[in-house]
């Protein structure tokens, strides 16, 4: 049985009719759909268990704390972290990056350098710009070359004794490029820099092992991996988290409080101020269990096959330009492309009229768009529920675009 045959029925939303046609949802890289198992877990949590966590000494409070912390243990195993103290729940990838940025802002010195890449999502760029401006630090970027891969020679040249942090995407949200993060992490560490990986596009598609990669921080969003919106994960290597002061304050992240000072809580709660997204943690837990049952190796193989199918089909359509590595083995589950004479937003609106939902625009990666010399692209992205027949519908719809305006 193919993966889509196994999963399709679990996603009620995929039965929707859009403009008179069965929905073809090819925008999972922006946000994936949710299986019934996730929806039911959250519903049941609210109906049976909900209370605030950690300091509610009553049955519901204790149960809520248990399910919240059980989600942390499940995520720890799923991402390959060694210790539960290393798994911090956030509001999403962007929030995770900002939490690290606020903590690093406390120790960054004028003249320090933060190294990003030209293919970063704005979320992995703006927080660093902000703290660099605040602290008089400098932001530099590894260039993208050729088919859309990082210039690793330039990476070597850009690493310096002043580099405090290397922040990059594990998988590009536009090009699909899977960056050589293990090797880059090793080289960054040799230069004395910390490493943050934006795993928003990797976590839904690849088997993760953050400990084996060796990075200091890894961030991801639940809503791109079959889970709910409003929750994400910040993995932080314990030795590194222990050295960092929290940059954000509130309840939950403290042990004892006086009027003029406070003692921080232990890890991981030190970095979780305020009431956390509890129901969302329950949903994320269910999503992780769901993905784990499918097996991430199968998920990766399924999405890679769809990616290959899509590239083969789109490439044959005259006027279509594909972006990113042509070899499907080197990329995640996104295919960005343009159709000659059609603005991406017009393209997306016309595909939508045929029931095909894709993303269009700059994909929050304007420096990359500038590098590619384009205003934007169309982008089809795939998840466990997408089918080969849907790729055929995409290809048919794209063929109709030329001369449509």
């Amino acid at each position, binding site marked *: 049985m193919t993966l889509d045959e196994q999963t399709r029925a679990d996603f009620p939303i995929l039965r929707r009719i859009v403009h008179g046609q069965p929905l073809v949802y090819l925008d999972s890289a922006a946000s994936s759909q949710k299986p019934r198992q996730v929806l039911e877990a959250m519903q049941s949590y609210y109906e049976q268990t909900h209370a605030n966590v950690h300091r509610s000494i009553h049955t519901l409070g204790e149960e809520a704390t248990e399910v919240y912390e059980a989600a942390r243990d499940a995520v720890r195993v799923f991402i390959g972290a060694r210790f539960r103290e290393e798994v911090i729940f956030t509001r999403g990838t962007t929030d995770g990056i900002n939490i690290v940025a606020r903590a690093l802002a406390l120790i960054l010195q004028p003249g320090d350098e933060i190294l990003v890449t030209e293919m970063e999502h704005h979320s992995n760029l703006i927080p660093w710009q902000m703290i660099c401006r605040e602290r008089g630090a400098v932001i530099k970027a590894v260039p993208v070359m050729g088919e859309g891969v990082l210039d690793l020679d330039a990476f070597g040249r850009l690493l310096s004794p002043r580099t405090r942090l290397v922040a990059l995407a594990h998988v590009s949200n536009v090009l699909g490029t899977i960056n050589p993060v293990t090797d880059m992490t090793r080289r960054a560490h040799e230069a004395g820099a910390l490493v943050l990986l934006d795993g928003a596009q990797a976590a839904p598609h690849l088997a993760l092992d953050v400990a084996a990669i060796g990075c200091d921080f890894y961030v991801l969003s639940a809503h791109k991996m079959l889970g709910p919106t409003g929750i994400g994960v910040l993995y932080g290597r314990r030795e590194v988290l222990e050295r960092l002061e929290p940059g954000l304050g509130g309840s939950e992240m403290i042990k004892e409080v006086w009027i003029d000072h406070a003692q921080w809580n232990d890890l991981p709660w030190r970095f979780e101020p305020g009431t956390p997204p509890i129901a969302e943690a329950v949903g994320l837990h269910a999503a992780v269990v769901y993905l784990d049952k499918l097996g991430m190796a199968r998920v990766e193989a399924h999405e890679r096959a769809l990616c290959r199918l899509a590239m083969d089909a789109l490439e044959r359509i005259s006027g279509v330009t594909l972006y990113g590595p042509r070899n499907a083995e080197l990329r995640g589950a996104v295919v960005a492309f343009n159709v000659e004479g059609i*603005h991406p937003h017009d393209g997306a609106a016309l595909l939508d009229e045929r029931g095909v939902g894709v993303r269009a625009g700059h994909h929050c990666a304007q420096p990359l768009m500038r590098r590619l010399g384009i205003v934007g692209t169309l982008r089809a992205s795939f998840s466990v529920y997408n089918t080969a027949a849907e790729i055929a519908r995409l290809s048919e719809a794209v063929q109709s675009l030329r001369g449509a305006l």
Partner: protein
Amino acid sequence: MVYSDVIRQRFRNPRYRGSLPAPDTSFEDVNPLCGDRIRIDCRIADGRLTDARHRGDSCAICAASADLLVELVLGKSVEEAASVPVSTLLERLGADIRSTRMKCVTLPLSVLQGALEGREVAR
């Protein structure tokens, strides 16, 4: 139908696309939704907009909106030109514009207003 005949025609065969040599005022801005950038050049004499042209990389809706807008305001006083209501443009476009694309319609309006107010282009 998102793409009315008016939009298709104006996109394919714009009447006022281009630039003016030594315009009296011009302005450009981007649509934060898509990063599209459009520019409008204006020539003004005796408080009236005597000529205008638009250009830029934009979607069909934005390009059509800009072209219709220029047609609407030519010969009008600066005050009138700066206060064309969105509803007038929407009516002329004759399309079912969703909220996500409304900025594509209104960007030319705000760019024209910027030009007429002599606003500086942000870089």
